[in-house]
């Protein structure tokens, strides 16, 4: 019982800090509202789709930027998609990195785009590791027989 309480506190503290640091925003809290007894894994499932989608987009972006003649419209289309999915799950810093990326695309600036890709990748891997910690904590709480706290 005490273990559950500790894990729950750890969870709430962790999510609160991730939120305050701007990695996740209100949209992530909106996702949490959609989790219930019949859909206990909803957030993990949609975030998992986000991870798969993001890996593909990062690869596509790297490929597109290393073409002899860069198709900036194509690059922009990938970034637009990445911006959309990160926004939908509340990955705030990733979304902002995508906004900057689109500006470099508009300017057809290859150095800018390559730097932006590195930035997006960095933010993505950061939020990914935080989300993985979060899900692991949820699993530990549930394995101990507890309920994952609902976030305000």
């Amino acid at each position, binding site marked *: 019982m005490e273990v559950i309480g500790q894990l729950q506190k750890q969870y709430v503290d962790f999510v609160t800090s991730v939120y305050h640091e701007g990695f996740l925003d209100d*949209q992530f809290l909106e996702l949490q509202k*959609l989790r*219930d007894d019949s859909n206990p894994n909803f957030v993990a499932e*949609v975030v998992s*789709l986000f991870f798969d989608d993001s890996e593909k987009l990062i690869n596509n972006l790297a490929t597109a930027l290393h073409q002899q003649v860069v198709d900036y419209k194509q690059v922009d289309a990938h970034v637009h998609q990445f*911006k*959309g*999915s990160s926004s*939908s799950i509340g990955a705030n810093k990733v979304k902002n990195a995508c906004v900057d990326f689109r500006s470099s695309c508009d300017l057809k600036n290859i150095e800018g785009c390559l730097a932006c890709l590195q930035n997006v990748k960095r933010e993505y891997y950061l939020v990914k590791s935080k989300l993985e910690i979060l899900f692991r904590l949820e699993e530990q709480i549930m394995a101990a027989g507890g309920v994952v706290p609902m976030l305000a």
Partner: protein
Amino acid sequence: MASSSSSFMGFGDGERPHVLAVDDSLVDRKLIERLLTSSACKVTTAENGQRALELLGLGEGQRVLSIDPKVNLIITDYCMPGMTGFDLLKKVKESSMLKDIPVVIVSSENVPTRMKKCLEEGAQEFLLKPLKQSDVKKLRCHMTKVNHSSDGKLCIGR
């Protein structure tokens, strides 16, 4: 041959509105599906406009209407490769069979001219992404009555 029966096979939950959600993003399809089911809707998703039209019975070269989808609302992303949400909206409104189905457009970009052109073309509403529960609650007002019978529900203010 086109079925004139209005019942959908195995459709026991006759009171739930059926929404067709169209979006090329897998993440967004998952989100909209959950948002709608949490709002007691039945959901079918499509990844593009062509697929949506096929599900509605208007696919290219489609002669047989295999099911009567009885869709009470179409919600579509604006930016999709190939057929945009706006193109889909036009096709729905041009079809005598489908024109009364309410269409809602969603977009990640707040472009007033885009919004205006969608509303002028007959969209009921234009929503901004990312979608949340409060957006979906608004949508119930737009859904056509299920099974053409008055369900007596009031559209509570947004």
